[in-house]
């Protein structure tokens, strides 16, 4: 029994390694991005080899998961989807009841490891929306839109409550993109955007004080020299002083002298901008745009609605990371805890991103045959 299982497992692992079902351009772009990330981290962390090797280890783990998941056909994923969605939402409820973590209740301790259930939703949310829309007549009508709205709203509300505005934004965007890609009529989208816009004053009322402060400090950073205003000012000085070509690798004075807070995590892109200048920024953004474009290409070639919507939504939510983090670093958007994908230091987001790309690889492997 055990023997046959080990043999099966061996065969499975060999298949993953010898015949990986991956999209080469996307894989190359991700490897390039990971290398840029590690190089930037090496500089931002003051040449801390332990941090760089730790991050590299996470990339390896993420890559292994990517290869593993790329072997699971999208049809199997589709069958699992409702359960995965329900399980991850249930975890959120558990965290809301008995979570731990300083300040914000977002961690769940499983004894062996601690993880953030909200991280799972970044994947299970677009899966669930795609699963729901898959058998329906598209473009969706109000009834289906309302159901999808509810599927998005429940977990997002739980994540906002934690409070983790950044992740909530990413999860909501992933679901919304699936709806957008399903061909939802423009006028319907217009109506919803207008309604959400009207809700902003109400939502303001429900924000935590520190979240309001972050928005207000963006308007007047000098008002808060010890808190968020300091982050915003120092980040802009870092970016602006980088100039066209940057100060050069490991020449970032802002992070080296501890002026820039969180310079290995949320604000690492400021270090990158300072060292590599506008040229570097444009280069990195082009790389990101290529990855997103390739994801959408894979989505267009996908075999069924589920795969199409899922692949497209995952690719487009990647954009939200880059835009929100870049906007924050450049003082254009409020300080929200969204990492720069594959560049910011920190485990869970890198691993969950790579798992998402694993799903994309699987969709690519099972694409429709060209006539």
């Amino acid at each position, binding site marked *: 029994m055990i023997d046959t299982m080990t043999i099966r497992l061996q065969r499975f692992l060999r298949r993953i390694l010898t015949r990986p079902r991956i999209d080469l351009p996307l894989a190359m772009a991700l490897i390039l991005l990971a290398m840029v990330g590690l190089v930037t981290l090496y500089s931002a962390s003051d040449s801390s080899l332990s941090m760089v090797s730790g991050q590299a280890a996470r990339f390896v783990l993420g890559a292994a998961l990517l290869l593993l998941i790329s072997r699971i056909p999208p049809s199997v994923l589709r069958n699992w989807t409702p359960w995965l969605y329900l399980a991850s939402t249930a975890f959120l409820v558990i965290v809301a009841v008995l979570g731990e973590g300083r300040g914000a209740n977002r961690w769940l301790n499983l004894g062996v490891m601690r993880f953030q259930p909200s991280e799972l939703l970044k994947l299970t949310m677009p899966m669930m929306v795609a699963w729901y829309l898959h058998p329906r007549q598209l473009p969706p009508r109000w009834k289906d839109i309302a159901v999808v709205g509810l599927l998005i709203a429940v977990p997002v509300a739980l994540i906002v409550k934690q409070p983790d505005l950044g992740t909530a934004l990413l999860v909501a965007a992933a679901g919304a993109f699936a709806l957008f890609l399903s061909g939802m009529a423009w006028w319907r989208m217009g109506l919803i955007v207008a309604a959400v816009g009207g809700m902003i004053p109400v939502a303001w009322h429900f924000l935590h004080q520190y979240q309001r402060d972050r928005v207000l400090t963006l308007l007047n950073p000098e008002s808060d020299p010890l808190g968020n205003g300091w982050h915003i000012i120092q980040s802009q*000085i870092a970016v602006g002083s980088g100039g066209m070509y940057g100060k050069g690798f490991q020449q970032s004075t802002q992070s080296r002298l501890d002026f820039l807070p969180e310079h290995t995590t949320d604000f690492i892109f400021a270090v990158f901008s300072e060292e590599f200048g506008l040229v570097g920024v444009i280069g990195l953004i082009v790389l990101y745009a290529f990855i997103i474009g390739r994801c959408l290409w894979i989505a267009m070639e996908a075999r069924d609605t589920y795969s199409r919507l899922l692949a497209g939504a995952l690719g487009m939510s990647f954009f939200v990371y880059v835009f929100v983090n870049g906007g924050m670093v450049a003082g254009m958007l409020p300080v929200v805890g969204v990492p720069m994908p594959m560049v910011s230091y920190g485990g869970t987001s890198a691993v969950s991103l790579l798992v998402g790309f694993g799903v994309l690889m699987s969709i690519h492997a099972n694409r429709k045959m060209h006539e």
Partner: protein
Amino acid sequence: MKIRRSFKDTRGESALFQRRAVVGFLLILLSFGLLVSRFHFLQVTHHDEFATRSTNNSVKPRAIPPARGLIYDRNGVLLADNVPAFRLEVVPDKVPDMQALLTELGKVVPLGQDDLDAFKKQQAQSRRFDSVPLKLHLTEDEIDRFAVNRWRFPGVDVVPYLTRHYPLGPLFAHVVGYVSRIDTDDLDRLDPDEYKGTSHVGRTGLERYYEDVLHGKPGYELDEVNADGRIQQVLKTIPPTPGTNLYLSIDVRMQKAAVAAFEGRPGAAVAIDPRNGQVLAMVSVPSFDPNLFVNGIGRADYTALTTDVDKPLLDRALKGAYPPGSTVKPFLALGGLEYGIRRPEDTVLSTGQFCLPGQTRCYRDDTRGGDGTVNMVRAIEKSTNTYFYRLALDMGIDRLSSWMSRFSFGGKTGIDLTGEADGILPSREWKAKRSKQGWFPGETVIAGIGQGYWAVTPLQLGHAMATLAGHGMPYLPRLVMATRASGDARPQMLANPPSGPSLIQKPSDWNVINEGMRAVITGGTGKGLNDGFPYPIAGKSGTAERFSRTSDAYDTNKNSAHLAARHRAWFEAYTPADDPKIAAAAVLEAGAWGAKDAGPIVRKIFDTWLLMQGSTAPSDTPLPYQSLPAPAGSVSVEDQPVESSSSEGGP
């Protein structure tokens, strides 16, 4: 679903998706363009400006914690002070091998396990370039020894700070409370911006209740730093706003006299001015030294305090709930009058036994054979149980508990401290929450003499006595009488208006109760307590049994040690009876008889109060506001010997 599927236009959907994907990608490119233009704006258009700011960026803000507000007694005697001290701080970033450093450092400056544990905890919470306190409150000797060896320990420094000191130690430990180091739970609830650079937070007592006003507001300075991050010069300082100073209505001398009156026996006492709710004394015996907790209490000290059978850490005045016994009788009598159930002249025949119809077990009077025919005044004087059994029964438990709750029995008095115990006011609702059995009439009977489920705290009884003495005018008990914010020249009195209308509708009712409580002192259990005191005292004793009686037999063992083991002794009183200016309640955990054992404690409190009036004639105004000296020149308590009239005076 099946039918729907047949409608699905797979090819059309795919085309629709392609259009959307293309539109989406174009929008993404547009957004990226926006992002790049913002970077262009910062990195090219405004590059020169930011480059200059970057090269000149050698200025870092550094938080300056505010000085915590001081706490004084009503005459300006310092109860909580800030004293300069030194602590060892370590910047983990500059230490290559922390374990080796701690081992080596431990040979120069002894480091306890407590210090190391706290350090590791805090280190895990801080960023590695933040300075983390390792050992607080260094001695001169330790500072000297470290100074000599300093070159061996890069990243370690001696840093001055202000630490809290309670000059009077145990005397105000339960009232003022103490501050202690901010821990992980505190970090969750405190505003990090307000507490930058602050190491301590109010943990108990007034230190906790008034944390918001005591803390103050941090300032900051802009430091010019060199490439290593060392401060070259301070460019600009926004000074912190010190916390607000508090002035208690308690007089240190009164507090001392009250503690002394207990002669070390466990118990508590509370004295309140019935005219405004100001707390004049609030003691719980035994007490502890709050200074032990400020910089982290050692394990041995803590174990000693927690294992002490007399529980010095327990604030008996606030949290100790004891059966009140006969002390509830005046309140019950007043309720009888107010509800119109009793007239003062109505009499009851006390035969020594009170039996409910149809029950074999009866309820006893304290005197064998009873007190004969008693009216209300006589019933209070003699503490005649039968009178109050019948009154409670006529009133019914619902009216009884509703009336008593107006004196804050069974609830919070609203004093400016946290953690007040509710005690227990017997009621149907209270019992329904704990038992499936309904309310029995017998439970109403014993509620009439303060037995059964009853439990009250000394604060509740003191507050109730003050409310009664003040002709029913309820005031929230207040420990803090005045505050002085930084910038105020003089302390500002805090307003404490009555918390509601008077509980007494007919003024004549009050006279009856007053007469009864006067009679307790002139001819009842409290006889002799007024001797040598210029003003009439009115009071009532209470002796509650700690265990329920197993038989109706009278205990003939009059050995007071034997009785003390099973009794709680209460005394409540106010004076002057014709125009009450102070009300007090005291409990002894092991007292044979309320009047004999707890009575003298209340009397000693009154004696000290009298001394503080400055003359034998009581003044019309609340305790005069003597000139409040500036904090720096405050009078040391040792200079003001307490002249207690009791022979056992002194701390």
